[in-house]
Every structure is written in C-alpha cells, then in structure tokens.
C-alpha cells in the first residue's frame, strides 16, 4: 500500500457518501406510488397504500402490502429480482434485468424522480 492508495480510498468513499446523502435527502420525501416499467415504457402506476398483487406481462409478479413492494415471482433464470429486498422508500428500485422490468417507488404528487429524469 502506498500513501496514494489511502487518498484514493478516502476519495472513493467520499463520492459514495455524497451519493448516499443526496439519495437519502431525495428519498426522504413522501413515497406514494409504485411505477412499473417494462422495456422503458410505463406499464402502470399504483398506489402504495392499496394492497395489491400485480402480474406484469405473465413474467413477473409484484406484491404491494403494508406500503412495501416485493417481487414475489419471476420467470427469469437468475432470480435476482426475487431475492431483492423489499422496497418502501422513495426512489428505491427493483430491477429484473432479463425481463427488462423496473419497479420504482415514486413520490405522490410532486414526483422527485420525474424532476430528476427531466
């Protein structure tokens, strides 16, 4: 290890911490909706407050319960999305790469995420 390595280490952690804080700040706003997109197109937007099971194109099933969202079934080979932790905070995302399914939590009225995307 050289001195430069430690500087680099601190620098990398600083970037990560900045990213995290930024996210925590944005994510703190009220989460209200779940947006499901498939292949870049919005499949549907649902309220977090209504418990519901949603079947997405026969390939993935998500469950909205107690204002949390979980991917409960997927026909993809890696099952990474099913093992993904349950999401509930603003901007949290579950992605199923093989099926190109993105499940995002977005704010209610003033969606922060849309502001970012625009």
């Amino acid at each position, binding site marked *: *290890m*050289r001195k*430069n*390595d430690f500087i*680099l*280490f601190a620098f*990398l*952690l600083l*970037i*990560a*911490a900045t*990213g*995290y804080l930024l*996210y925590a700040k944005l994510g703190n706003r009220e989460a209200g909706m779940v947006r499901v*997109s498939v*292949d*870049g197109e919005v499949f549907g937007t649902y309220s977090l407050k209504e418990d519901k099971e949603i079947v997405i194109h026969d390939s993935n099933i998500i469950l909205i319960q107690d204002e949390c969202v979980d991917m409960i079934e997927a026909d993809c*080979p*890696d099952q*990474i*999305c099913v*093992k*993904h*932790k349950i999401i509930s905070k603003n*901007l*949290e*995302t579950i*992605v199923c*790469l*093989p099926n*190109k399914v*993105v499940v*995002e939590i977005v704010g209610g009225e003033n969606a922060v*995420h849309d502001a*970012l*995307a625009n």
Partner: protein
Amino acid sequence: MKTKVAYFGVFTALALIFSYVETLIPIHLGIPGIKLGLANLIVLLVLFKMGTKEAYILTVVRILLAGFLFGSMFSILYSLAGGLVSLTGMWLLKNIDKFSIVGISMVGGVLHNIGQLVVAGFVLETFGVIYYFPVLFVSGTLTGILIGFIAGEMLKRLHKI
C-alpha cells in the same frame, strides 16, 4: 513464446474457474451486483506479469466462456461492459504509476460496477438504477481492496513467470 501461450492458457482456465466459484458463493444482500470479483485476481496478475494486450484478451475470452457456460447473452453484455471499463481504468492507473496494486484493484472493482450500472441504465431506459450507485461504489471499493491484497501477495510469489 511457447511458455507464454501455456501460461496464458493456465491463467484463462483459472479465471474461468474463479468465475464459476463466484457463482457458487451465495451472497444475497438484497442488492444485486455485490460480488467478490475473484476473476479480477487473474486479470491483475496477467496485467502485471504478461501485459496489457494479454489482459484484454483474457478478459474477453473469460467472459465469453463463462457467459456461455453459466450465464446468458445478457450476463455477457453486462460482464463485458464491467470487465472492459474496469480493465481500462486499472491499466490507466498502472501507467500513471502512483498507486500500488491495491489502489489499482480498488478502482477496478468500482469501475466494474459502474460499467454494469450504466449498461443497465441504457438497456432499461431508466435513471432508476442510480439508486444502486452508492452501495455498489462501496462494495466495489472493499472487494477491490481484498482482491488487490491477494493479487499483491501472489505476485510476490510468482516471480518465476
């Protein structure tokens, strides 16, 4: 020259085995993309012992083989993005000659994750994946340090090659 080809074969085989071993380690932290990056150990060795060209060839060959054996077309795309971005970063850092192998491996780990994240963002046409950015940044740094240390110790003992 003959031994060089033989060594390259051995290294490729090792990298492939490490890719396989990696799939056997069940780490599910609820966030996809966190992994040790064992194959990067071999990429580092080849980069330091054999050369840049060899390291690039090894990366591509290893990813294609591992992808066809254990993965899918998708995993090949993501692995290639991660692997090539990571290797390019490590090569640049090695050329600057201001960092030890641990620092180089650290950047390799982080860039691997970033490369994959960017491809995922493009494929899915969403900014949503940046949600994973901080945690993958930290995990890339930490696993990079570990792999860098091991690679450094291996290099010390492999002076005959």
